[in-house]
């Protein structure tokens, strides 16, 4: 059988003729499949001086997949208090005092690198992550 599977269209669309972007689901296309999710908080030491290097801390999350997986992470910012969670580092004054998080994966772990650009004291940064089965290859 060369043409089989499941398709589900959005309301009001004929599943037999709907274009791919009008489908809620199609087994023809891969989907993002969550392996694990989690959240937490990490105290990050103060920056060493005003406009100086940020304090840093790294949260390491083992995923045991054996390949480099797609992952998405959000964390809080210490400066932009209206932005509760952001996926990106805030590159203030070059990157001398970045704030927030940078994220990386390898075949063993997800690394959540956290930055505190505040020289007045340690700050707590909150994070949330999803690790997917989808391989970066």
């Amino acid at each position, binding site marked *: 059988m060369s043409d089989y599977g499941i398709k*589900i269209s959005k309301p009001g669309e004929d599943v037999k003729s709907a274009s791919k972007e009008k*489908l809620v689901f199609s087994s023809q296309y*891969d*989907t993002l499949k969550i392996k694990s999710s989690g959240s937490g908080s990490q105290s990050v030491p103060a920056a060493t001086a005003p406009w100086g290097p940020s304090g840093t801390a790294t949260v390491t999350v083992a995923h045991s997949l054996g390949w480099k997986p797609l992952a998405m992470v959000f964390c809080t910012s210490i400066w932009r208090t209206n932005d509760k969670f952001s996926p990106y580092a805030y*590159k203030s004054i070059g990157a001398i005092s970045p704030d927030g998080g940078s994220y990386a994966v*390898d075949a063993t772990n997800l690394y959540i690198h956290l930055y505190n650009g505040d020289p007045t004291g340690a700050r707590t940064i909150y994070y949330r992550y999803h690790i997917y089965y989808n391989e970066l290859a």
Partner: protein
Amino acid sequence: MTNYGIKVSKPGVAVTDTDVQYQVMNSEHNSLKVWKAGSTNISVSAFTGFVGTGIGNVDIAHGLGYSPFFICYFKLKHASKLWFQDSLDTSMLVGNFITGSAYSNDTNLHMHVGVNGNNLAAFTAVGYYQILIDKAYE
């Protein structure tokens, strides 16, 4: 027919009486669908401290005709890790960094690598992408 579709619940919960956050799949709600996934080399020029140096760009044609949602990772210069788009590879002198960033338009996924910091020889980065069928805007 007013009530039809597919629901799949997480282990241990009945699909007939659980809320959507406890379901693995529910056809009442859209799911992200991968259109194209792969990787590409990105040649990054030497950074000499001047504007326009230390950059590399690659366009990935997607053929969708609209700007799609996407997720990118980058293998930058110093580590075997893959960095999520717009993360900082700070494996250089303090205050210096490399980033990989991206955007999509109606034609391409545009992947960019930029260096900010101490002088750095040219190198080849690798961009990993997942282009999704779902539109970045409606």
